[in-house]
């Protein structure tokens, strides 16, 4: 495992930052972690930042007027600055901390058809349409199903082509004057496909709708520039970008955040409370009810610092090399079928596949049992996509900055073994 790729990324050194990667599993197996699309591992820099904050600086934020309160507030708000800079948000006040990407997506969904709001863009009722795609993660499906149930609006879907691309052929009919919002993945967590935001956005603007991007699988892996991206909302999650669990982010255009009704009510999101009504703090605080995930936000700031110090261009280039290597190597395994693009055009480092006659549950478990190779198996919270391909499940390998080509070799060896066991 001494691969240094030629793209300016010293993987050997990076791996030392992640203590878990040198762990041995029971039975003397090394850990080969190819499940970062599910959740990424955490570098010491993140772990230590959190530990240190709890051991020496912790206090509640916003409300406290003592040294600890000031230090925690400063660190928490500095984390907001870091995240804003990391994703190229036009304003730090457009960064709302949530508990994960799912809460961020639900937050936007609950803004629609909500009698507590009055902006016409968020009105929703029978006849109104919500456009998703067949490749969405359940977290970008179920909130909209629940919204449709509450309001009587209709869900419509971008199909996915056999190659695993967004099928844009019917876009002009799909997105129309009835469309209130289009919510799609920036990058699919199964196919690896990176969707053509500009094309979709152009049609969204013509139709006068809003665009929400689920960037849970893109922000961790490539330089982000939300200002240039031009969407209305972007959701992503901390634990997939070497940050802690318990923290996610919603970015929204300031003007829209101001127009939306609040979601969760409570301390910190108010300006003043009377018994008969309340006034709300301006965004982002309006959407951060109660004590926020303080230490988690601070840890996420450290994660952004870490990724920036490595360089997101270098991370992307490294993953591209790994993906090319993996597509080549997996392509040589008999009866292995990749679900998703098999070229490097607009795709990230996530490769899902099936092995003829062997259930992915068995593939994943044997890989783990025999070789310590951790992949994800199942429908990866994207069951409609699997239904579309007529398969119950896939095996998914997903790569990150700390992975190496020799780990992909181990995966391939493992798959040969799986085929032997179940022959």
């Amino acid at each position, binding site marked *: 495992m001494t691969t240094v790729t030629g793209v300016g990324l010293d993987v050997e050194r990076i791996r030392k930052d992640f203590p878990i990667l040198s762990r041995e599993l029971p039975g003397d197996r090394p850990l080969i972690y190819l499940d970062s699309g599910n959740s990424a591992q955490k570098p010491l820099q993140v772990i230590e930042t959190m530990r240190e904050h709890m051991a020496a600086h912790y206090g509640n934020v916003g409300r406290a007027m003592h040294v600890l309160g000031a230090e925690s507030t400063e660190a928490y708000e500095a984390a907001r600055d870091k995240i804003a800079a990391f994703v190229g948000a036009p304003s730090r006040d457009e960064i709302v901390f949530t508990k994960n990407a799912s809460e961020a997506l639900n937050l936007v969904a609950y803004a629609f058809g909500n009698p507590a709001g009055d902006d016409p863009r968020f009105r929703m009722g029978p006849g109104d349409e919500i456009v998703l795609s067949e490749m969405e993660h359940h977290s970008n499906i179920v909130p909209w199903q629940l919204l449709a149930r509450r309001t009587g609006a209709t869900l419509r879907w971008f199909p996915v082509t056999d190659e695993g691309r967004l099928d844009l052929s019917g876009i002009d009919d799909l997105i129309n004057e009835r469309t209130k919002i289009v919510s799609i993945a920036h990058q699919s967590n199964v196919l690896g496909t990176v969707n053509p935001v500009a094309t979709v956005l152009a049609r969204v603007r013509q139709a006068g709708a809003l665009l929400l991007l689920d960037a849970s699988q893109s922000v961790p892996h490539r330089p982000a520039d939300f200002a240039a991206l031009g969407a209305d909302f972007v959701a992503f999650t901390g634990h997939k970008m070497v940050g802690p669990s318990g923290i996610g982010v919603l970015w929204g255009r300031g003007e829209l955040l101001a127009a939306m009704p609040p979601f969760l009510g409570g301390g910190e999101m108010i300006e003043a409370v009377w018994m008969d009504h309340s006034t709300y703090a301006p965004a982002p605080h309006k959407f951060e009810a109660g004590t926020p995930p303080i230490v988690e936000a601070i840890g996420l700031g450290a994660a952004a610092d870490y990724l920036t110090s490595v360089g997101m261009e270098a991370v992307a280039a490294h993953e591209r090399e790994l993906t090319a290597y993996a597509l080549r190597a997996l392509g040589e395994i008999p009866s292995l079928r990749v679900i998703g693009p098999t070229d490097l055009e607009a795709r990230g480092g996530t490769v899902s596949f099936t092995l003829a006659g062997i*259930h992915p*549950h*068995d593939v994943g*478990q044997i890989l783990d*049992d*025999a070789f310590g190779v951790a992949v994800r198996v199942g*429908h990866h919270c994207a069951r409609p996509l699997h239904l579309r391909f007529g398969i*119950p499940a896939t095996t998914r390998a997903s790569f990150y900055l700390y992975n190496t080509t020799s780990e992909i070799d181990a995966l391939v060896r493992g798959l040969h073994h799986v085929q032997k*066991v*179940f022959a």
Partner: protein
Amino acid sequence: MIAESMYQELILEHYKHPQGRGLREPYDAEVHHVNPTCGDEITMRVRVGDGGKIEDVSYDGQGCSISQAAASMLYELASGSTAGETLAVVDEFTRLMQGRGKVEPDEDVLGDAVAFAGVAKFPARVKCALLAWMAYKDALVRSTT
């Protein structure tokens, strides 16, 4: 393969050489169960004779090795026992599976089915192991009422 593996020899053996597989006549009840989270499915028939003796358990289905092996193992354990006896085994098996790897299995009751103990640590696999057993329990209830 290491000691804690859920792929005990016995499980693979049952998967590769399933016992009693195939739907047979006569039967008192037939059920069809699906695990919606992973798509595994099973059709199961039960034939109960005098004194509650299980005369046949026949089944067909598709899914991972765990779900298939569990069906085969069930066939072996149930055949020739009484309905009451098998229900005790089903209960103990369920308790083991839902114990999140913390329940000591009762080998006297479970027999070969203790081989599934390793599965209990993986919540996502527990349903695979239980699919056939739940279907059996359901079929038994229907056949006797």
